[in-house]
């Protein structure tokens, strides 16, 4: 049972990441490959203010989200100039630059040594140190983010976004500032991703830069694509499948020395097959 709880917590964290990335990829149709950067900013800010300044987890969470939103604003302003493959590539660039900061700004982030001993959340004497209560906290956050995403989607703001995805020119003709809509979505998504980072840091209790490299962004993107673009339920389902799949593969029984590499092979082939036979993902509204 504790193993199942652990997996559910990981699913929750990736659900939040997928829901927020879905806001960007699903609603603007731009393939963003730097989700791990904001995940990392949330995790690092939370870890630093909790271990060095003794902040409460929930306060640290908010500081992390604000910080992430601020950086997203700057990056988003630059990214808004690009579209298509160039957008994708530039976002990879930002991920690598932010990763380099985690790795090399050693006075603040401790660089490759990572930050150990990050405390678990507690509030009003209520502690989330055991995994079950942590799962409840994580699920609550998933529900909150889920509802927020649905609200954005169904509001008039969301309708404009959807229209932008279908025909950007037409929308701008009607007098909407397309740039403003895209940037606002981006900033909100970055703040949500930071929540996932805070949860992660406090749950694993140790973070190091390697978790926030481009590979992780690609993984989160794969979650969104598998679940289906612009589908919130799809994002959660995608997170469940891709987090649980490698775990399930642990039980298949390859010889141990090649099992780990085989997992990578299976994961790679899954992406290829999915693209060939179901590019809209499991519950997607539209194709990439």
């Amino acid at each position, binding site marked *: 049972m504790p193993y199942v709880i652990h997996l559910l917590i990981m699913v929750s964290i990736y659900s939040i990441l997928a829901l927020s990335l879905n806001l960007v990829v699903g609603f603007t149709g731009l393939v963003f490959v730097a989700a791990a950067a904001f995940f990392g900013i949330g995790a690092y800010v939370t870890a630093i203010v909790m271990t060095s300044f003794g902040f409460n987890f929930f306060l640290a969470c908010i500081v992390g989200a604000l910080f992430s939103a601020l950086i997203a604003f700057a990056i988003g302003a630059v990214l808004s*100039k690009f579209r298509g493959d160039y957008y994708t590539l*530039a976002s990879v660039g930002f991920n690598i630059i932010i990763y380099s900061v985690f790795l090399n700004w050693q006075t603040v982030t401790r660089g490759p040594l990572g930050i150990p001993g990050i405390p678990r959340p507690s509030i009003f004497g209520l502690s989330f140190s055991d995994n079950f209560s942590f799962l409840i906290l994580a699920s609550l956050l998933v529900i909150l983010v889920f509802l927020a995403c649905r609200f954005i989607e169904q509001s008039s703001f969301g309708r404009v976004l959807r229209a932008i995805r279908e025909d950007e020119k037409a929308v701008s003709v009607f007098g909407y500032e397309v740039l403003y809509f895209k940037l606002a979505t981006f900033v909100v998504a970055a703040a949500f991703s930071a929540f996932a980072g805070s949860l992660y840091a406090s749950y694993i209790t140790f973070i190091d830069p390697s978790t926030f490299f481009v590979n992780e962004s690609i993984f989160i993107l794969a979650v969104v694509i598998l679940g289906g673009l612009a589908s919130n339920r799809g994002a959660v389902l995608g997170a469940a499948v891709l987090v649980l799949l490698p775990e399930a593969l642990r039980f298949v029984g390859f010889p141990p020395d090649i099992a780990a590499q085989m997992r990578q092979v299976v994961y790679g082939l899954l992406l290829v097959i999915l693209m060939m036979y179901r590019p809209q993902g499991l519950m997607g509204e539209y194709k990439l």
Partner: protein
Amino acid sequence: MDILPQLILNSLIAGSIYAILALGFNLIFSTVNFFDLSYGAVAVIGAYAVFYFSKLLGWPLFVAVPLGVLISGTIGFLLYTSVYRRLRMRRSSNTVLLVASLGVLTALQALLAIFFSSQFQTLSATSSGERLFSLFSGSITETQVIILLTAVAVLLGLAFVLKLTLFGKAVKAVGDDEEVAKIVGINTDKIIGKVFFIGSAIAGLAAILVGFDTGIEPIMGLPLLLKGVIASIVGGIGNVYGGVAGAFLLGFVENFGIWKISGEWKDAIAFAVLILFLVFRPQGIFKK
């Protein structure tokens, strides 16, 4: 001590490798218009083929190296016929192709690790005792001289083929507009197949040279790919000379960046250059 001559030499050596990578990548990208991420893995396969034939079977290098290049080309061609052609026939978007090629990259790197282990290998016969040449106050090895010459040879060869042969004209026509090319009677499928073969063979050559200069490991595919991509875009996508100019610019910026800033920021610097170019000169140094 004056380190300037050495820095210039280092930049030229790095630039040559990037140039070869960019030439192959540029050729494929400008013809099919999608980011083929498996390019990195295809390159490494060629280097491992040389490792297998020359180090494990003891074949002479003049057999092993051409065989390695051929194998890279063949794998590239097979990937096109088995995966990318099908996806393109279904009118999949570029993003779908990008994600599928990502799956291929992941799977191939893991397979290499299964067959050859993750251990670092070198292709050169001995790790020292290579002939050294002095140039001003810098020094350069025999292998590196070969790298410089190969880059020039590949550039001239490719420029000749693309500018002066019928095949080159057909490639350009397909890259400009596949539909129109089809209508005027070009067998686009055959042309693209050949482009994949040639581009992948060039990639293999680059990885083999890296293997002789420094060494190979299964996970080197992604860095090789990214350097080729950045060089292509900075130089100008679809322009043979552009990719080479971008490669040398990248080589110089990286190496002088180490001198003025510090080595650990090398990748961040490379991507910062890319983003600056995308913002201020998206068409690259040379327009198509």
